[in-house]
């Protein structure tokens, strides 16, 4: 089987491409930078250019569309271009190229605002209730992708929740960096139950969705480890994997929300670069429960997470240790030449 993976430079994109290669698929990657995944054909370019997309897709049986603009920085137009228009182009070109299966990689935030999610099901993407440019644009794009689900090309949306693992700069990187600076605090008691997804589990689920497109087609599926944990326990687990002490600082929810509200406006008015330290969305995300019912996803994908949260944390610790050793070796080596 030949599969196109868009956005293979991201942590999840790389893991998906690597996993496909390992299972014996022929893999093409499409992204602006070189993907550097062994055993794949790499096409460099933007998904906003239909010709390049069409070229990359030639002869593909399936497409996994991961390329997206993420985070909370940027204008609506920027998010809309990459996430909505980009998806329209990828889906349309895939139809033209005769692709039979399409997996749109989405986010649980497309269906939910700030309410606590307790054993929640996926729910329909709702651009009206989703918060922030990222979630809104992803919701529009997912809605479009699923609306093109047909017999000829089956489309599913896979929504991994809170992906983390070795090499992750988004979640793990930020947590570690903030903790080192002493700028990490829990919102509320830190006890809100949070689902998360270890990187390889997320990649496995996305690959499973390609294989099980007959079952998964036409519907969104939330993917997680199915092991909700109190957010403080997960975060402190990540810190402990990096040899850092647990964080016990707690910020009342109302204060965090207020700070986020202010920060959002200051950043917006002053057109500041970078991310505000707190946003209202983040305050809600960190302070309320977010966990999902995984029964349906597991049944439909015939998939189960292979790595538990605890095993994932061990792998994270091993990775951090390796990196630290590498870094020290590098420092010693560079120190040597300087001398």
């Amino acid at each position, binding site marked *: 089987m030949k599969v196109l993976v868009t956005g293979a430079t991201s942590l999840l994109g790389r893991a998906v491409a690597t996993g496909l290669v390992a299972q014996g698929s022929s893999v093409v990657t499409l992204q602006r930078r070189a993907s550097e995944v062994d055993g794949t054909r790499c096409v460099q370019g933007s998904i906003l250019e239909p010709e390049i997309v069409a070229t990359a897709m030639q002869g593909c049986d399936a497409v996994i569309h991961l390329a997206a603009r993420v985070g909370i920085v940027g204008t609506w137009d920027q998010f809309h271009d990459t996430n909505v228009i980009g998806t329209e182009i990828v889906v349309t070109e895939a139809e033209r190229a005769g692709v039979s299966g399409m997996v749109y990689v989405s986010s649980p935030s497309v269906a939910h605002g700030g309410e606590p999610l307790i054993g929640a099901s996926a729910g329909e993407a709702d651009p009206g209730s989703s918060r922030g440019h990222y979630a809104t644009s992803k919701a529009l794009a997912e809605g479009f992708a699923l609306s093109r689900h047909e017999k000829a090309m089956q489309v599913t949306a896979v929504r991994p929740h809170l992906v983390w693992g070795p090499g992750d700069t988004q979640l793990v990187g930020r947590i570690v960096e903030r903790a080192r600076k002493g700028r990490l605090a829990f*919102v509320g*008691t830190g*006890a*809100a*139950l949070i689902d998360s997804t270890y990187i390889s589990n997320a990649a496995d689920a996305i690959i499973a969705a390609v294989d099980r497109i007959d079952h998964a087609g036409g519907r969104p599926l939330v993917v997680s480890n199915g092991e909700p944990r109190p957010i403080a326990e997960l975060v402190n687990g990540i810190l402990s994997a990096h040899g850092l002490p*647990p964080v016990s600082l707690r910020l009342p929810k109302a204060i965090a929300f207020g700070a986020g509200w202010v920060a959002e406006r200051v950043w917006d008015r002053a057109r500041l670069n970078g991310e505000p330290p707190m946003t209202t969305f983040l305050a809600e995300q960190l302070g309320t429960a977010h966990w999902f019912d995984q029964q349906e996803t597991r049944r439909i994908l015939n998939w189960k997470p292979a790595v538990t949260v605890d095993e994932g944390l061990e792998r994270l610790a091993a990775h951090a240790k390796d990196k630290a050793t590498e870094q020290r070796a590098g420092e010693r080596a560079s120190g040597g030449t300087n001398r």
Partner: protein
Amino acid sequence: MAAPTELAAYLPPPLAELDPAWSRLVAVPELDGDGRTFHVLDTHAAERSDDPPQLTVLCVHGNPSWSFLWRHVIAAAPDGVRVVAPDHLNMGYSEHTGSDRSLAERIEDLCALTDALGIDGSVITLAHDWGGPISMGWAQRRVDQLRGFVLANTAVSRPSTGSPPRLITAAGSAAFLRTVTQRTTAFIRAGLALSRPRPAESVQEGFLAPYRTADRRSGIRGFVADIPLDENHRSFGALDGVASGMSKLADVPALLLWGARDPVFSEQYLHDLEERLPHADVHRFVAASHFVTEDAPVAEAFWEWVSAEDRPPRPALISDSPLRPTDLAASPLVVERHGDRWRSIDSEVFAERTGRVARGLALAGVKPGDRVATMIPPGIDLTVVLYACWQAGFTAVLVDGGLGVGNMHRAIKAAAPQWLIGISPAVAAAKALRWKGTKIVAGEMDSRLRAALKVAHSLGEIELMGEAAGGAPNGNDHPAVIGFTSGSTGPSKGVQYRSEQLAAQRDAISALYRIDSGDRLVAAFAPFALYGPALGIASIVPEMDVTRPATLTASALGAAAAEIDATIIFASPAALQNVVATARSMTASERAAVAEVRLVMSAGAPLRLDLLQAVAEMAPHAAVHAPYGMTEVLPVADLSLVDRMARGRGEGSCVGRPIKGVAVRIHPLDFLGRPAVEPASEANVLGEVVVSAPHLKERYDRLWWTEHRSLTADGWHRTGDIGRLDDDGFLWISGRVPHVISTVDGPVPPIPIEHAAERVDTVSRAAAVGVGPPGRQVVVAVVEIEAAGRSPLAGMTLASSIRAQISAATGREPAAVLVTPHVPVDKRHNSKVDRARVARWADRVLAGERPGRI
């Protein structure tokens, strides 16, 4: 005063929970001459079927209300049953006639309406508030059609004692009445405000919808004004007729559903109805108020009553020997502490006193079947009074001080005894809390205090009265005892036993522990304290504050054991806990006396193994037993400590094999943790423990629905406990049905998880609860530790050691480990974890809310 306006009937606007398809306007020709139009909710509104319904349910609302009241009943109607719920004329969306309607007219209206609707088959009526007498007026005219009737918070007459409902006396002042009921919506709002929790906004909207304007509220005023407060009222005769006509319904199945917190139709109205309808089933909803349909699952209870089969047969009795002191009686028979010395009563005197009290009570006016609350600490007086009641056929209401004042108050309100026999503090509490019933004081009381507390007799006077009289009354057709459950798993429930069932319990205990005339009993466990005379052995009550079992000291226990050379000790788990804690203060002779006993028995709540072991050390020659059972049936199974330790801990606690005469079945749990109707045929299946025994209770008291739900179709008792029977027939208990955690992998019982968590040294108690929607719950361990700080989350080290224990023992990983300085347990036994409360707290904590206290 403007006359009420004439207004046409019309259909209601769209309202929450109300299906517009139910609504119809029904013209009744010739009513009042030219005919009147009713608004009726009717499940068969659309159908003009030739296939008549098997049954019609006629729902009759009261005031201030309209047929909206019955929406849940209508929505739950089974196929083949027609539900008809009219709005009375001048009420709801029915026609306003321009003049007030009397009770007699309303009864005629209802008859004319059912004729117009062609209801000529079987009917069950269901009525609330002042709809009650209207429905009964209809029923008395249509007895041939009537298959049953249900009344909820209503009255068919003004009870002769007490005052009429307070809101209703306002009717005396026409101006006040008009302001409250017609000028404003105050009357409707006041009625709804009684509900706890407050009805949803949309429901309040629904009740108010037809009454938005003063002219449409004139019917409410007229309805209140029609309540006959005295003999001169125009509806006095009609209400009197309905009341006296109730005797016509003596053979018709009846159910009385009651919101016990109704300040309008208080429980004296229920008791009045019970007196008129001794055959009626009764269910009190303890927490519900006047609008019982809003506060309690009335629709569910109603339909279950309609479809209920006849009561299943009771298990066969193995004993029919009466519950009397036996001929083998010991001397002394009962010993109690009096000041700083012991006093006793021998069998002969006991028999004489019992006879005297029975006769004396009868002369004082107690009739067979009357309920006599006994609020006397265990000892000679209590034993005499109880055996007197059993001899004479009075029902003893055992209000155990261990219930606590709140539960005691609720117990008395539920059982509604006509007689209260108590020591002075109990009699004072009875006065202060306004318990109904004639008061008899046990013990001395100053005459002025007696007058102030309205005490009618003293127990001594009763005995003197009994001396004068001849033959003793004798009755056996009534319950012998009403006891109460601990209330650790929901509100405390009254439980009735017949004397044959108590005798069977005595026989079960006697056979199980091979009790013979050589035994002497220290009775520190309230219910069993009374069995000494019936077992024919001496019993002694140790010095303790019976309202708090945890006050029994080792020294007091030892002194009692020494006094009679005891061979057996019965004590509650809480009492034993304190005994163990105070063991060091015993004298040598006290220690020796306890060491001599051959049997220590404790029941009522699960016992911790370490506690049993500590007891075994104090009584090295004794077999230590903690039989498994519950207030409804005890014992069910039994296992000695030695055997218990030999079997170790598997999935739960091993409680032994069912004892002789008791049969146990397991009804397997489905995916969501609901027990199946059919029992499991194999061993090692997890499910609800279901029991049949000759000493099973007769029924729950005034809790028809609870009783109905507690029985299987073949009359076995559903314990609500979760467990399994192993290959050798041993029963293992692992939790309660409502506490089962329903995960994606199926139901998970809490106790094995709790046992695992309790293996961690710093954990003194643990509760395992589920968080999340049914079928998708995750396991959460909540542990009690001394060092619990402000954060509800367990520290990393504690969390990981608890996770490791739980994972090793059960193969499951909890989603979270939370800490608290205090896991809530029941007051009576100090051991049953209130998992429902813990679960609500864990829900809040893990949703990210501010947790507050458990």
